[in-house]
Protein backbone atom coordinates (compact mmCIF):
# COMPACT_ATOMS: atom_id res chain seq x y z
CA UNK A 1 0.00 0.00 0.00
CA UNK A 2 2.78 2.48 0.89
CA UNK A 3 5.83 3.24 -1.24
CA UNK A 4 9.27 2.28 0.06
CA UNK A 5 10.01 5.96 0.71
CA UNK A 6 6.93 6.27 2.88
CA UNK A 7 7.83 3.16 4.82
CA UNK A 8 11.39 4.42 5.24
CA UNK A 9 10.21 7.75 6.64
CA UNK A 10 7.71 6.00 8.85
CA UNK A 11 10.18 3.49 10.22
CA UNK A 12 13.01 5.97 10.63
CA UNK A 13 11.34 9.31 10.89
CA UNK A 14 13.72 12.28 10.52
CA UNK A 15 13.63 15.16 12.95
CA UNK A 16 11.24 13.80 15.55
CA UNK A 17 11.06 15.94 18.65
CA UNK A 18 10.69 19.47 19.90
CA UNK A 19 12.75 22.63 19.48
CA UNK A 20 13.04 24.61 22.67
CA UNK A 21 12.21 28.24 22.11
CA UNK A 22 11.21 27.56 18.53
CA UNK A 23 10.68 30.57 16.29
CA UNK A 24 7.51 29.13 14.89
CA UNK A 25 5.26 26.39 16.13
CA UNK A 26 2.16 25.12 14.34
CA UNK A 27 -0.26 22.40 15.22
CA UNK A 28 -3.00 21.19 12.89
CA UNK A 29 -5.48 18.38 12.80
CA UNK A 30 -7.58 16.96 15.52
CA UNK A 31 -7.43 13.84 17.61
CA UNK A 32 -11.01 13.18 16.69
CA UNK A 33 -10.05 12.52 13.10
CA UNK A 34 -6.97 10.60 14.05
CA UNK A 35 -4.23 12.97 12.89
CA UNK A 36 -2.38 15.73 14.71
CA UNK A 37 0.82 17.29 13.46
CA UNK A 38 2.89 19.68 15.47
CA UNK A 39 5.73 21.41 13.67
CA UNK A 40 8.61 23.35 15.30
CA UNK A 41 10.79 25.72 13.25
CA UNK A 42 14.08 27.42 14.02
CA UNK A 43 14.44 30.39 11.66
CA UNK A 44 17.46 32.61 11.28
CA UNK A 45 17.78 35.42 8.75
CA UNK A 46 14.67 34.25 6.98
CA UNK A 47 16.12 30.80 6.52
CA UNK A 48 14.81 27.65 8.18
CA UNK A 49 17.77 26.31 10.12
CA UNK A 50 15.98 23.47 11.81
CA UNK A 51 12.59 21.76 11.82
CA UNK A 52 11.20 19.14 14.14
CA UNK A 53 7.83 17.47 14.50
CA UNK A 54 5.60 15.40 16.67
CA UNK A 55 2.75 13.52 15.10
CA UNK A 56 -0.18 11.47 16.26
CA UNK A 57 -1.46 9.62 13.25
CA UNK A 58 -1.17 6.88 10.72
CA UNK A 59 1.92 5.81 8.80
CA UNK A 60 1.35 8.39 6.11
CA UNK A 61 0.92 11.15 8.67
CA UNK A 62 4.25 10.29 10.25
CA UNK A 63 5.99 9.97 6.89
CA UNK A 64 4.65 13.24 5.50
CA UNK A 65 5.66 15.05 8.68
CA UNK A 66 9.13 13.60 8.45
CA UNK A 67 9.47 14.44 4.79
CA UNK A 68 8.10 17.94 5.37
CA UNK A 69 10.80 18.69 7.93
CA UNK A 70 13.47 17.44 5.55
CA UNK A 71 12.12 19.63 2.79
CA UNK A 72 11.94 22.66 5.09
CA UNK A 73 15.47 22.69 6.43
CA UNK A 74 17.64 25.15 4.50
CA UNK A 75 14.75 26.81 2.70
CA UNK A 76 13.81 30.47 2.83
CA UNK A 77 10.37 31.34 4.10
CA UNK A 78 9.19 32.07 0.56
CA UNK A 79 10.48 28.72 -0.61
CA UNK A 80 8.92 27.00 2.38
CA UNK A 81 5.57 28.48 1.49
CA UNK A 82 5.75 26.71 -1.82
CA UNK A 83 5.94 23.27 -0.24
CA UNK A 84 2.44 22.12 -1.13
CA UNK A 85 0.95 18.77 -0.34
CA UNK A 86 1.76 17.70 -3.90
CA UNK A 87 5.44 18.44 -3.32
CA UNK A 88 5.47 16.36 -0.15
CA UNK A 89 3.58 13.56 -1.82
CA UNK A 90 5.89 13.47 -4.81
CA UNK A 91 8.93 13.45 -2.57
CA UNK A 92 7.47 10.32 -0.98
CA UNK A 93 6.81 8.64 -4.33
CA UNK A 94 3.10 9.07 -3.85
CA UNK A 95 0.46 8.14 -1.32
CA UNK A 96 -2.62 5.91 -1.55
CA UNK A 97 -5.69 7.96 -2.45
CA UNK A 98 -7.22 7.62 1.01
CA UNK A 99 -4.05 9.07 2.51
CA UNK A 100 -3.84 12.21 0.42
CA UNK A 101 -5.33 14.17 3.31
CA UNK A 102 -2.17 13.47 5.33
CA UNK A 103 -0.09 15.42 2.84
CA UNK A 104 -2.62 18.22 3.04
CA UNK A 105 -2.13 18.17 6.77
CA UNK A 106 1.62 18.49 6.29
CA UNK A 107 1.16 21.49 4.02
CA UNK A 108 -1.09 23.03 6.61
CA UNK A 109 1.32 22.32 9.46
CA UNK A 110 4.03 24.17 7.57
CA UNK A 111 1.67 27.05 6.95
CA UNK A 112 0.65 27.16 10.61
CA UNK A 113 4.24 27.17 11.85
CA UNK A 114 5.22 29.90 9.40
CA UNK A 115 2.13 31.89 10.36
CA UNK A 116 3.13 31.59 14.01
CA UNK A 117 6.61 32.85 13.14
CA UNK A 118 5.17 35.79 11.25
CA UNK A 119 2.78 36.70 14.04
CA UNK A 120 5.55 36.52 16.61
CA UNK A 121 7.66 38.77 14.46
CA UNK A 122 4.90 41.17 13.55
CA UNK A 123 5.01 40.26 9.89
CA UNK A 124 1.23 39.83 9.62
CA UNK A 125 -1.56 41.87 11.03
CA UNK A 126 -4.17 39.52 12.37
CA UNK A 127 -3.56 36.25 14.04
CA UNK A 128 -6.37 34.37 12.48
CA UNK A 129 -5.56 30.72 12.45
CA UNK A 130 -5.36 29.51 8.89
CA UNK A 131 -4.14 26.02 9.47
CA UNK A 132 -7.45 24.20 9.32
CA UNK A 133 -7.07 20.74 7.98
CA UNK A 134 -10.70 20.42 7.10
CA UNK A 135 -10.57 17.14 8.90
CA UNK A 136 -12.00 17.79 12.32
CA UNK A 137 -15.37 18.59 10.90
CA UNK A 138 -15.71 21.60 13.12
CA UNK A 139 -16.26 23.96 10.23
CA UNK A 140 -18.45 21.61 8.25
CA UNK A 141 -15.88 21.15 5.52
CA UNK A 142 -15.27 17.59 6.57
CA UNK A 143 -17.96 16.06 4.44
CA UNK A 144 -16.93 18.12 1.47
CA UNK A 145 -13.36 17.04 1.79
CA UNK A 146 -14.40 13.46 2.20
CA UNK A 147 -16.41 13.57 -0.95
CA UNK A 148 -13.48 15.15 -2.66
CA UNK A 149 -11.14 12.44 -1.50
CA UNK A 150 -13.55 9.75 -2.50
CA UNK A 151 -13.96 11.28 -5.90
CA UNK A 152 -10.21 11.21 -6.33
CA UNK A 153 -10.24 7.64 -5.21
CA UNK A 154 -12.78 6.77 -7.85
Amino acid at each position, binding site marked *: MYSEKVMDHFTNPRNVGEIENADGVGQVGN*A*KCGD*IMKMYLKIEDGIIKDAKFKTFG*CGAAVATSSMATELLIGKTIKEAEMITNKVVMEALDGLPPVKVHCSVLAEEAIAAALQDYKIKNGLVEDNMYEGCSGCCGGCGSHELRREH*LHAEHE
Partner: protein
Amino acid sequence: MADMEKKIIYLDHAATTYVKPEVFEVMKPYFDTEYGNPSSIYSIGRSNRKAVEDARISVAKSIGAAEPSEIYFTGSGTESDNWAIKGAALALKKKGKHIITSNIEHPAVLATCEFLQKQGYDITYVKVDEEGLINPEDVDKEIRPDTILVTIMMANNEIGTIQPIKEIAQVCKKHGVLFHTDAVQAAGNIPINVKDLGVDLLSVSGHKFYGPKGVGMLYIRKGVRIESLIHGGHQERNRRAGTENVPGIVGFAKALELANINMEAHYKKLSSLRDRALKGITDRIPYTRVNGSMEKRLPGNLNISFRFVEGESVLLMLDMKGIKASSGSACTSGSLDPSHVLLSIGLPHEIAHGSLRLSFGEINTEEEVDYLIDALDEIINKLRNMSPLYEDFTKGV
Protein backbone atom coordinates in the same frame (compact mmCIF):
# COMPACT_ATOMS: atom_id res chain seq x y z
CA MET B 1 15.68 -8.04 12.04
CA ALA B 2 15.72 -10.00 8.80
CA ASP B 3 15.26 -13.04 10.95
CA MET B 4 12.27 -11.52 12.68
CA GLU B 5 10.65 -10.63 9.42
CA LYS B 6 10.57 -14.27 8.49
CA LYS B 7 8.82 -15.29 11.66
CA ILE B 8 5.20 -14.47 11.07
CA ILE B 9 2.87 -14.24 14.03
CA TYR B 10 -0.64 -14.16 12.72
CA LEU B 11 -3.05 -12.55 15.17
CA ASP B 12 -5.82 -11.64 12.79
CA HIS B 13 -7.98 -14.74 12.69
CA ALA B 14 -11.11 -12.65 12.90
CA ALA B 15 -10.23 -11.19 9.49
CA THR B 16 -9.59 -14.53 7.86
CA THR B 17 -8.04 -17.89 8.59
CA TYR B 18 -5.84 -20.22 6.60
CA VAL B 19 -7.50 -23.34 5.24
CA LYS B 20 -6.67 -26.35 7.40
CA PRO B 21 -4.84 -29.14 5.57
CA GLU B 22 -7.64 -31.61 6.35
CA VAL B 23 -10.10 -29.20 4.80
CA PHE B 24 -8.03 -28.55 1.71
CA GLU B 25 -7.59 -32.29 1.27
CA VAL B 26 -11.33 -32.91 0.93
CA MET B 27 -11.71 -29.98 -1.46
CA LYS B 28 -8.98 -31.02 -3.87
CA PRO B 29 -10.70 -33.76 -5.89
CA TYR B 30 -13.46 -31.34 -6.85
CA PHE B 31 -11.05 -29.14 -8.74
CA ASP B 32 -9.62 -31.60 -11.19
CA THR B 33 -11.25 -35.01 -11.16
CA GLU B 34 -14.74 -34.73 -9.67
CA TYR B 35 -15.46 -31.58 -11.59
CA GLY B 36 -18.96 -32.24 -12.90
CA ASN B 37 -21.82 -29.81 -12.62
CA PRO B 38 -24.10 -30.91 -9.77
CA SER B 39 -27.12 -30.18 -11.95
CA SER B 40 -26.09 -32.78 -14.52
CA ILE B 41 -27.69 -36.19 -14.43
CA TYR B 42 -24.68 -38.29 -15.39
CA SER B 43 -22.48 -39.95 -12.83
CA ILE B 44 -19.80 -37.34 -12.16
CA GLY B 45 -22.51 -34.71 -11.98
CA ARG B 46 -24.33 -36.94 -9.53
CA SER B 47 -21.26 -37.45 -7.36
CA ASN B 48 -20.93 -33.66 -7.19
CA ARG B 49 -24.58 -33.38 -6.27
CA LYS B 50 -24.03 -35.96 -3.57
CA ALA B 51 -21.01 -34.06 -2.27
CA VAL B 52 -23.09 -30.90 -2.03
CA GLU B 53 -26.00 -32.67 -0.37
CA ASP B 54 -23.70 -34.45 2.07
CA ALA B 55 -22.19 -31.09 2.93
CA ARG B 56 -25.67 -29.73 3.52
CA ILE B 57 -26.47 -32.59 5.88
CA SER B 58 -23.22 -32.05 7.73
CA VAL B 59 -23.77 -28.31 8.10
CA ALA B 60 -27.35 -28.87 9.26
CA LYS B 61 -25.98 -31.15 11.94
CA SER B 62 -23.23 -28.70 12.89
CA ILE B 63 -25.69 -25.89 13.58
CA GLY B 64 -28.55 -28.00 14.89
CA ALA B 65 -30.93 -27.35 12.00
CA ALA B 66 -34.07 -29.47 11.87
CA GLU B 67 -33.50 -30.37 8.23
CA PRO B 68 -30.69 -30.15 5.66
CA SER B 69 -33.13 -28.32 3.39
CA GLU B 70 -32.83 -25.31 5.72
CA ILE B 71 -29.20 -24.85 4.67
CA TYR B 72 -28.46 -22.64 1.63
CA PHE B 73 -24.94 -22.16 0.36
CA THR B 74 -23.92 -18.70 -0.84
CA GLY B 75 -20.80 -16.91 -2.06
CA SER B 76 -19.89 -15.18 1.22
CA GLY B 77 -21.07 -14.11 4.64
CA THR B 78 -21.82 -10.74 3.13
CA GLU B 79 -24.08 -12.30 0.52
CA SER B 80 -25.89 -14.25 3.26
CA ASP B 81 -26.49 -11.05 5.23
CA ASN B 82 -27.68 -9.20 2.14
CA TRP B 83 -29.96 -12.04 1.17
CA ALA B 84 -31.51 -12.44 4.61
CA ILE B 85 -32.22 -8.75 5.04
CA LYS B 86 -33.21 -7.73 1.52
CA GLY B 87 -35.02 -11.00 1.01
CA ALA B 88 -37.14 -10.46 4.11
CA ALA B 89 -37.65 -6.80 3.26
CA LEU B 90 -39.02 -7.61 -0.18
CA ALA B 91 -41.09 -10.59 0.90
CA LEU B 92 -42.76 -8.72 3.73
CA LYS B 93 -43.07 -5.21 2.39
CA LYS B 94 -46.82 -5.47 2.39
CA LYS B 95 -46.76 -6.08 6.12
CA GLY B 96 -44.46 -3.16 6.81
CA LYS B 97 -41.15 -1.51 6.18
CA HIS B 98 -39.62 -1.26 9.61
CA ILE B 99 -36.38 -3.07 10.41
CA ILE B 100 -34.53 -3.17 13.73
CA THR B 101 -30.78 -3.68 13.96
CA SER B 102 -27.97 -2.63 16.30
CA ASN B 103 -25.37 0.09 16.05
CA ILE B 104 -22.44 -2.34 16.14
CA GLU B 105 -23.29 -4.53 13.16
CA HIS B 106 -20.81 -5.45 10.47
CA PRO B 107 -20.93 -3.29 7.31
CA ALA B 108 -22.55 -6.23 5.51
CA VAL B 109 -25.63 -5.56 7.63
CA LEU B 110 -25.29 -1.81 8.10
CA ALA B 111 -24.73 -0.96 4.45
CA THR B 112 -27.63 -3.24 3.49
CA CYS B 113 -29.88 -1.42 5.95
CA GLU B 114 -28.71 1.91 4.59
CA PHE B 115 -29.53 0.73 1.10
CA LEU B 116 -33.02 -0.27 2.22
CA GLN B 117 -33.44 3.05 3.95
CA LYS B 118 -32.89 4.73 0.60
CA GLN B 119 -35.57 2.44 -0.81
CA GLY B 120 -38.07 3.74 1.70
CA TYR B 121 -37.58 1.37 4.61
CA ASP B 122 -37.36 2.65 8.17
CA ILE B 123 -34.38 1.44 10.20
CA THR B 124 -34.08 1.58 13.99
CA TYR B 125 -30.64 1.13 15.53
CA VAL B 126 -30.74 -0.34 19.03
CA LYS B 127 -27.76 0.85 21.07
CA VAL B 128 -25.33 -1.35 22.96
CA ASP B 129 -24.20 -0.48 26.48
CA GLU B 130 -20.59 0.41 27.28
CA GLU B 131 -19.78 -3.28 27.51
CA GLY B 132 -20.89 -3.69 23.92
CA LEU B 133 -24.02 -5.66 24.76
CA ILE B 134 -27.62 -5.38 23.61
CA ASN B 135 -30.45 -5.45 26.10
CA PRO B 136 -33.27 -7.64 24.68
CA GLU B 137 -35.78 -5.32 26.33
CA ASP B 138 -34.51 -2.50 24.17
CA VAL B 139 -35.38 -4.59 21.13
CA ASP B 140 -38.80 -5.33 22.59
CA LYS B 141 -39.49 -1.62 23.03
CA GLU B 142 -38.69 -0.82 19.42
CA ILE B 143 -40.96 -3.43 17.83
CA ARG B 144 -43.95 -1.88 16.10
CA PRO B 145 -46.89 -3.30 14.13
CA ASP B 146 -44.98 -2.61 10.90
CA THR B 147 -41.73 -4.21 12.06
CA ILE B 148 -40.83 -7.02 9.66
CA LEU B 149 -37.32 -7.99 10.69
CA VAL B 150 -34.86 -7.79 13.55
CA THR B 151 -31.23 -8.39 12.63
CA ILE B 152 -28.67 -8.50 15.42
CA MET B 153 -25.26 -10.11 15.19
CA MET B 154 -24.37 -13.07 17.36
CA ALA B 155 -20.78 -11.98 18.01
CA ASN B 156 -19.08 -8.76 17.11
CA ASN B 157 -16.11 -8.74 14.74
CA GLU B 158 -14.19 -5.95 16.47
CA ILE B 159 -14.70 -6.42 20.17
CA GLY B 160 -15.92 -10.03 20.15
CA THR B 161 -18.91 -9.46 22.40
CA ILE B 162 -21.58 -12.14 22.32
CA GLN B 163 -25.19 -10.98 22.28
CA PRO B 164 -28.12 -12.63 24.08
CA ILE B 165 -29.45 -14.08 20.83
CA LYS B 166 -31.80 -16.58 22.43
CA GLU B 167 -33.49 -13.87 24.48
CA ILE B 168 -33.77 -11.55 21.48
CA ALA B 169 -35.24 -14.42 19.46
CA GLN B 170 -37.86 -14.90 22.16
CA VAL B 171 -38.79 -11.25 21.99
CA CYS B 172 -39.16 -11.50 18.22
CA LYS B 173 -41.18 -14.68 18.45
CA LYS B 174 -43.53 -13.07 20.94
CA HIS B 175 -44.27 -10.34 18.40
CA GLY B 176 -44.24 -12.65 15.38
CA VAL B 177 -41.32 -10.79 13.83
CA LEU B 178 -38.61 -12.52 11.78
CA PHE B 179 -35.20 -12.64 13.40
CA HIS B 180 -31.88 -12.82 11.57
CA THR B 181 -28.48 -13.11 13.20
CA ASP B 182 -25.09 -12.60 11.58
CA ALA B 183 -23.13 -15.48 13.11
CA VAL B 184 -20.06 -15.01 10.90
CA GLN B 185 -17.75 -14.39 13.85
CA ALA B 186 -19.48 -16.84 16.16
CA ALA B 187 -19.31 -19.88 13.89
CA GLY B 188 -16.48 -22.20 14.83
CA ASN B 189 -15.74 -20.28 18.03
CA ILE B 190 -18.82 -20.86 20.16
CA PRO B 191 -21.60 -23.44 19.82
CA ILE B 192 -24.45 -22.55 17.50
CA ASN B 193 -27.74 -24.37 17.68
CA VAL B 194 -30.41 -22.70 15.61
CA LYS B 195 -33.22 -24.68 17.17
CA ASP B 196 -32.11 -23.81 20.66
CA LEU B 197 -31.47 -20.17 19.72
CA GLY B 198 -34.83 -19.93 17.99
CA VAL B 199 -33.56 -17.79 15.11
CA ASP B 200 -35.24 -17.71 11.70
CA LEU B 201 -32.23 -16.74 9.62
CA LEU B 202 -28.52 -17.11 10.37
CA SER B 203 -25.45 -16.17 8.29
CA VAL B 204 -22.05 -17.86 8.30
CA SER B 205 -18.88 -17.36 6.20
CA GLY B 206 -16.40 -20.14 5.44
CA HIS B 207 -13.07 -18.40 5.85
CA LYS B 208 -13.50 -17.52 9.51
CA PHE B 209 -13.13 -21.08 10.85
CA TYR B 210 -10.30 -22.51 8.75
CA GLY B 211 -12.50 -23.05 5.70
CA PRO B 212 -12.23 -21.50 2.25
CA LYS B 213 -13.02 -17.96 1.13
CA GLY B 214 -15.80 -17.33 -1.37
CA VAL B 215 -18.40 -19.55 0.28
CA GLY B 216 -21.01 -18.70 2.86
CA MET B 217 -24.23 -20.14 4.17
CA LEU B 218 -27.65 -18.87 5.07
CA TYR B 219 -29.85 -20.90 7.38
CA ILE B 220 -33.51 -20.33 6.57
CA ARG B 221 -35.92 -21.93 8.99
CA LYS B 222 -38.43 -24.20 7.29
CA GLY B 223 -41.53 -22.25 6.37
CA VAL B 224 -39.80 -18.87 6.32
CA ARG B 225 -40.26 -17.21 2.93
CA ILE B 226 -37.81 -14.62 1.73
CA GLU B 227 -37.27 -13.29 -1.78
CA SER B 228 -34.14 -14.49 -3.57
CA LEU B 229 -31.15 -12.21 -3.92
CA ILE B 230 -29.64 -14.02 -6.90
CA HIS B 231 -32.15 -15.26 -9.46
CA GLY B 232 -31.55 -17.77 -12.22
CA GLY B 233 -31.20 -21.55 -12.35
CA HIS B 234 -32.75 -24.07 -10.01
CA GLN B 235 -29.81 -24.51 -7.68
CA GLU B 236 -30.30 -24.49 -3.92
CA ARG B 237 -33.94 -25.47 -4.24
CA ASN B 238 -34.68 -22.54 -6.55
CA ARG B 239 -33.59 -19.99 -4.00
CA ARG B 240 -29.95 -19.18 -4.78
CA ALA B 241 -29.02 -19.52 -8.41
CA GLY B 242 -25.58 -20.19 -9.87
CA THR B 243 -23.46 -23.28 -10.42
CA GLU B 244 -22.51 -24.55 -6.99
CA ASN B 245 -18.97 -23.89 -5.78
CA VAL B 246 -18.52 -27.59 -5.06
CA PRO B 247 -14.99 -27.55 -3.59
CA GLY B 248 -15.90 -24.48 -1.56
CA ILE B 249 -19.07 -26.06 -0.20
CA VAL B 250 -17.32 -29.31 0.64
CA GLY B 251 -14.54 -27.39 2.41
CA PHE B 252 -17.02 -25.22 4.27
CA ALA B 253 -18.83 -28.24 5.70
CA LYS B 254 -15.63 -30.02 6.63
CA ALA B 255 -14.20 -26.98 8.39
CA LEU B 256 -17.39 -26.43 10.38
CA GLU B 257 -17.50 -30.09 11.31
CA LEU B 258 -13.89 -29.99 12.55
CA ALA B 259 -14.57 -26.80 14.47
CA ASN B 260 -17.50 -28.43 16.22
CA ILE B 261 -15.55 -31.53 17.18
CA ASN B 262 -12.71 -29.40 18.41
CA MET B 263 -14.68 -26.59 20.01
CA GLU B 264 -13.90 -27.15 23.67
CA ALA B 265 -10.14 -27.38 23.20
CA HIS B 266 -10.27 -24.46 20.78
CA TYR B 267 -12.11 -22.32 23.28
CA LYS B 268 -9.73 -23.20 26.09
CA LYS B 269 -6.59 -22.63 24.09
CA LEU B 270 -7.62 -19.33 22.54
CA SER B 271 -9.01 -17.80 25.69
CA SER B 272 -5.91 -18.75 27.62
CA LEU B 273 -3.64 -17.11 25.02
CA ARG B 274 -5.91 -14.10 24.97
CA ASP B 275 -5.87 -13.75 28.76
CA ARG B 276 -2.10 -14.10 28.86
CA ALA B 277 -1.78 -11.32 26.30
CA LEU B 278 -4.19 -9.10 28.17
CA LYS B 279 -2.37 -9.49 31.46
CA GLY B 280 1.05 -8.94 29.91
CA ILE B 281 0.00 -5.87 28.01
CA THR B 282 -1.88 -4.14 30.81
CA ASP B 283 0.87 -4.95 33.30
CA ARG B 284 3.53 -3.44 31.10
CA ILE B 285 1.87 -0.61 29.23
CA PRO B 286 0.08 2.19 31.09
CA TYR B 287 -2.89 4.19 29.78
CA THR B 288 -4.44 1.15 28.20
CA ARG B 289 -8.03 -0.11 28.25
CA VAL B 290 -9.85 -3.21 27.06
CA ASN B 291 -12.90 -2.68 24.93
CA GLY B 292 -16.02 -4.76 25.37
CA SER B 293 -17.21 -7.23 27.96
CA MET B 294 -14.59 -9.76 28.99
CA GLU B 295 -17.30 -12.17 30.06
CA LYS B 296 -19.57 -12.40 27.05
CA ARG B 297 -16.79 -12.57 24.51
CA LEU B 298 -15.35 -14.76 21.80
CA PRO B 299 -12.40 -16.76 23.10
CA GLY B 300 -9.82 -15.40 20.69
CA ASN B 301 -10.72 -11.72 20.68
CA LEU B 302 -8.81 -8.95 22.39
CA ASN B 303 -9.46 -5.31 21.63
CA ILE B 304 -7.31 -2.74 23.41
CA SER B 305 -6.91 1.01 23.19
CA PHE B 306 -3.56 2.67 23.78
CA ARG B 307 -3.93 6.32 24.57
CA PHE B 308 -1.92 8.95 22.65
CA VAL B 309 -1.11 6.74 19.67
CA GLU B 310 -2.87 5.95 16.43
CA GLY B 311 -3.83 2.41 15.41
CA GLU B 312 -2.43 2.19 11.90
CA SER B 313 1.02 3.20 13.09
CA VAL B 314 0.89 0.47 15.69
CA LEU B 315 -0.16 -2.04 13.04
CA LEU B 316 2.62 -1.07 10.67
CA MET B 317 5.24 -1.34 13.37
CA LEU B 318 3.85 -4.68 14.50
CA ASP B 319 3.98 -5.84 10.90
CA MET B 320 7.64 -4.95 10.73
CA LYS B 321 8.15 -7.25 13.67
CA GLY B 322 6.25 -10.00 11.90
CA ILE B 323 3.04 -9.58 13.87
CA LYS B 324 -0.17 -9.39 11.86
CA ALA B 325 -3.03 -7.69 13.64
CA SER B 326 -5.89 -5.38 12.89
CA SER B 327 -6.87 -1.91 13.96
CA GLY B 328 -10.05 -0.83 15.63
CA SER B 329 -10.06 2.08 13.28
CA ALA B 330 -11.33 1.52 9.79
CA CYS B 331 -8.49 3.71 8.61
CA THR B 332 -7.49 1.57 5.68
CA SER B 333 -10.92 1.20 4.29
CA GLY B 334 -11.19 4.66 2.81
CA SER B 335 -13.01 6.22 5.70
CA LEU B 336 -11.46 8.80 7.97
CA ASP B 337 -13.68 7.86 10.87
CA PRO B 338 -12.70 5.53 13.66
CA SER B 339 -14.59 2.34 14.26
CA HIS B 340 -18.33 2.82 14.72
CA VAL B 341 -18.23 -0.06 17.20
CA LEU B 342 -15.73 1.61 19.51
CA LEU B 343 -17.63 4.88 19.34
CA SER B 344 -20.82 2.98 20.16
CA ILE B 345 -19.41 1.73 23.44
CA GLY B 346 -18.55 5.28 24.36
CA LEU B 347 -14.89 5.68 23.43
CA PRO B 348 -13.83 9.23 22.53
CA HIS B 349 -12.62 9.54 18.94
CA GLU B 350 -8.96 9.93 19.83
CA ILE B 351 -8.94 6.81 21.97
CA ALA B 352 -10.90 4.83 19.41
CA HIS B 353 -8.21 5.77 16.91
CA GLY B 354 -5.57 4.16 19.05
CA SER B 355 -7.13 0.71 19.17
CA LEU B 356 -5.84 -2.66 18.23
CA ARG B 357 -7.68 -5.92 17.57
CA LEU B 358 -5.77 -9.08 18.30
CA SER B 359 -7.59 -12.24 17.29
CA PHE B 360 -5.91 -15.46 18.30
CA GLY B 361 -6.12 -18.74 16.46
CA GLU B 362 -5.20 -22.36 16.75
CA ILE B 363 -1.66 -21.92 15.45
CA ASN B 364 -0.64 -19.34 18.04
CA THR B 365 1.62 -20.17 21.00
CA GLU B 366 2.48 -18.71 24.39
CA GLU B 367 5.92 -17.77 23.08
CA GLU B 368 4.26 -15.73 20.38
CA VAL B 369 2.13 -13.99 22.95
CA ASP B 370 5.20 -13.12 25.00
CA TYR B 371 6.96 -11.82 21.92
CA LEU B 372 3.88 -9.74 21.16
CA ILE B 373 3.91 -8.18 24.61
CA ASP B 374 7.56 -7.16 24.27
CA ALA B 375 7.00 -5.80 20.81
CA LEU B 376 3.96 -3.79 21.81
CA ASP B 377 5.71 -2.32 24.80
CA GLU B 378 8.53 -1.06 22.58
CA ILE B 379 6.23 0.21 19.83
CA ILE B 380 3.81 2.05 22.06
CA ASN B 381 6.73 3.73 23.78
CA LYS B 382 8.26 4.80 20.52
CA LEU B 383 4.99 6.17 19.19
CA ARG B 384 4.13 7.97 22.41
CA ASN B 385 7.47 9.70 22.29
CA MET B 386 6.53 10.93 18.86
CA SER B 387 3.03 11.99 19.86
CA PRO B 388 2.07 15.61 20.51
CA LEU B 389 -0.84 14.31 22.61
CA TYR B 390 1.51 12.48 24.91
CA GLU B 391 3.74 15.55 25.07
CA ASP B 392 0.78 17.64 26.19
CA PHE B 393 -0.26 14.96 28.66
CA THR B 394 3.16 14.62 30.30
CA LYS B 395 3.52 18.38 30.41
CA GLY B 396 0.15 18.46 32.08
CA VAL B 397 -1.43 20.63 29.38
